C-alpha cells in the first residue's frame, strides 16, 4: 500500500463560512486505485470537503492537487475534465429523462463533436452518436439497470436513482470517483450489490473516495478510512485501526462498535 503513487493531495485545507468553521486544517492523500472513506458525524464537514475537491466551493485556505494539477481556480466542469467526477447525495439524476438518456448526458465528455457536424448530421457525428448509445447500454448493464433503460429516471426508487447517479458519473470516464453517501436509501441486498459494484469500479483502475454513514459497508469496502469530527481529522488508518481507535469510538462509533 505504501508503494502506491498519490492521486490526490489535500493540503491544509480550511473552509469557513463567516464565523463557522466547516473544515479546519485538513490534510490527507488518496493513492491511485485506492478506496478511501471519509466518515464522521453529521456536520463534520464531509460534503464540504467534497465540494472543495470538485470546485463547487473555494477553500478559505490550503490547496487540493489532483495528479499534480492544482485545482484552485478551476470551475467544476474543468475539474470534471481532469477525470475527477463526483456523485451527489440528493440531486443524483436528470428526473425527466429516461435512464438511457441520463447516461447519454453523462457521456458528454466522450461525445464532443462540432456543433455544425451534429446539425448537418455528418457521418462523424452519427458515428459518435452510435458509439455513445452503445456505451450507455454497456454502462446500464454494468450497474444492472438495463431493464429500466426506458423509464424516466425520476420514476425510479431512490436506491435505483443512486445507481443511475453512479452510472452517470462512470459515463464521464472518471479516473477518480467521489461518492457522496451512495447507499443511503438502499436496502441490505442493494447495498451488498453496491459494494460489489464499487470493487469492480476499482478493479478498472478508478480511485474511489467515499463519504458514507453505513459503517458495516464502510468497514467492508475501504482500504483506508479518514475520520472527521467538527471539521478536523481525528483519525486515519485501515478499518481495523479505526475500529479500535479510542478517539473514534468516543466521537463517533460509540461504545460497542469495536465488536462490529
Amino acid at each position, binding site marked *: 500500500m505504501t508503494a502506491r503513487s498519490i492521486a490526490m493531495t489535500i493540503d491544509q485545507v480550511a473552509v469557513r463560512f463567516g464565523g463557522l468553521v466547516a473544515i479546519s486544517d485538513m490534510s490527507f492523500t488518496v493513492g491511485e486505485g485506492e478506496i478511501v472513506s471519509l466518515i464522521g458525524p453529521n456536520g463534520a464537514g464531509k460534503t464540504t470537503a467534497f465540494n472543495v475537491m470538485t470546485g463547487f466551493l473555494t477553500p478559505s485556505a490550503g490547496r487540493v492537487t489532483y495528479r499534480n494539477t492544482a485545482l484552485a481556480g478551476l470551475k467544476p466542469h474543468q475539474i470534471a475534465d481532469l477525470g475527477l467526477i463526483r456523485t451527489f447525495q440528493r440531486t443524483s439524476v436528470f*428526473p*425527466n429523462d429516461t435512464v438511457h438518456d441520463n447516461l447519454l448526458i453523462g457521456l458528454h465528455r466522450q461525445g464532443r*463533436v462540432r456543433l455544425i457536424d451534429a446539425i448537418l448530421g455528418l457521418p462523424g457525428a452519427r458515428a459518435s452518436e452510435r458509439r455513445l448509445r452503445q456505451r450507455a447500454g454497456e454502462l446500464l448493464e454494468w450497474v444492472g439497470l438495463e431493464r429500466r433503460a426506458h423509464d424516466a429516471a425520476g420514476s425510479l426508487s431512490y436506491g435505483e436513482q443512486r445507481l443511475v447517479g453512479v452510472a452517470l458519473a462512470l459515463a464521464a470516464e472518471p479516473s477518480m470517483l467521489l461518492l457522496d453517501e451512495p447507499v443511503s436509501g438502499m436496502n441490505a441486498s442493494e447495498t451488498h450489490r453496491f459494494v460489489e459494484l464499487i470493487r469492480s469500479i476499482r478493479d478498472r483502475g478508478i480511485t474511489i473516495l467515499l463519504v458514507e454513514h453505513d459503517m458495516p459497508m464502510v468497514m467492508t469496502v475501504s482500504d483506508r478510512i479518514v475520520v472527521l469530527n467538527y471539521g478536523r481529522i481525528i483519525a486515519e488508518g485501515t478499518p481495523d485501526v479505526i475500529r479500535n481507535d479510542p478517539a473514534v469510538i468516543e466521537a463517533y462509533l460509540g461504545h460497542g462498535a469495536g465488536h462490529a
Partner: protein
Amino acid sequence: MKAIITILAVAALASVPLWLRDPYLLNALITTGIFVIGAMSLNLLLGFTGQLSLGHIAFFGIGAYVSALTSLGFDVGLPGDVRLVHAPWPPIAGFVLAIIVAGLCGYFVGLLSFRVRGAYFVIVTISFAEVVRLVALNWVELTQGPLALTNIPSIALPLPGVGELTLRTKLQNYYLVLVVALIAYLLIARLVHSHFGRSMRGLMENETLAVSVGIDVTRTLTIAAVISAAIAGAAGSLYAHYIRIIDPEVFAFINTVTMVIMVITGGKGSLAGPVVGGLIFGLLPVALRPVMAPEAQWIAYGGVLIAILFVLPRGIVPSLAQRFRRRRTGRTAPSPVALAETAAKEPA
C-alpha cells in the same frame, strides 16, 4: 407516426395558397409565419434551456433594421467628422447580415447575463430591448426614428443563369416564409436531438449534476442564445422585406409577450409547440376582428390563454401527445414525466 404528422402538416401548409385566394388571409398567414419563426427561436431558449428572454423582440427588430438598412443604404455622421456611407446592397445580403448581427447581439447578451443567470437574464434582455428601441427611435439620421424606414425592397433570389427573382407577390412571400420556417424548425430539431441538445436539457433539469459530468454552463447557454437570436434576426429580416416599412414600434414589449404566449400555450420544450401556439395566436386577431375592437381582443387573448393553460397545463402539444399516448397504451397511470415531477418536488 410523428413523421407522418409532420409530413401531413407541411403538405397542408404548402397547399394553402392553392385554395386560399383571399389576399387578406394570406397576408395574415405570412405575418403569422414570421412570428412563428420568432416563437420557435424563443422556444429554443425558454423551452430547452429554461432561460426566459423577455426582450426577444430585440433580436427580431435588429434583424429587421439591419436588413432594411443594408438594402436601403445609409449616410450617417459619426463623432469626429467621419461619415459612414453605405451604398444599397441586395436584400439577400441584408438577410444574411441580419442573421449575423442578431447572432452577435445574442452572444453579448448571453455573455453578460449567463454568468449569473435566472432573473438576471430576464432583466438584461428586457433592458437590452428597451435600449435598442430607444436607439432606433432617437438615431434619426440612421433609422428615420418614428418616421420609419420606408420603401424597403422585397427580397430577390439570385437564380444562376436566369437572373433574379424578386418576391413581390403574397404567394411568393408565403412560400419564402414557409421555407425559412422549415429550415429553422429542422435546425432546432437537429440541435435539440444532438449531443448539444442533451447538454441543454441536462442543465435545465439539474444544473449541478450537469456541471459535475463536465458540461460547461456558460458556453452551452451562450451558444443557445446565439442560435436563438440569429433565427429571430432572420425572422426580422423577412418581416422588413415583406411589410417594407419598419419603425421603432417593432421593438414594443407586447411583441415579445405575444411570442412568449405562443410558446407557452403551444408547449415550451416541444418542437411543434410554438408552431401550434403561433398559428392560434397569430390567426386569432383575424377571427376576432369582425366581432370586437382591438382593445377588447387583448382581453380575449388573455381569456384564451388562461382557458388553454387551465385545460392543458403543459401546453397544447405536450398535453395532447401525452393523452394520445395514454389512450394507445390503454393506461390511466400518470406519465413518467408527471411522476418525475412529483418525485422532484418531494424533499429527498
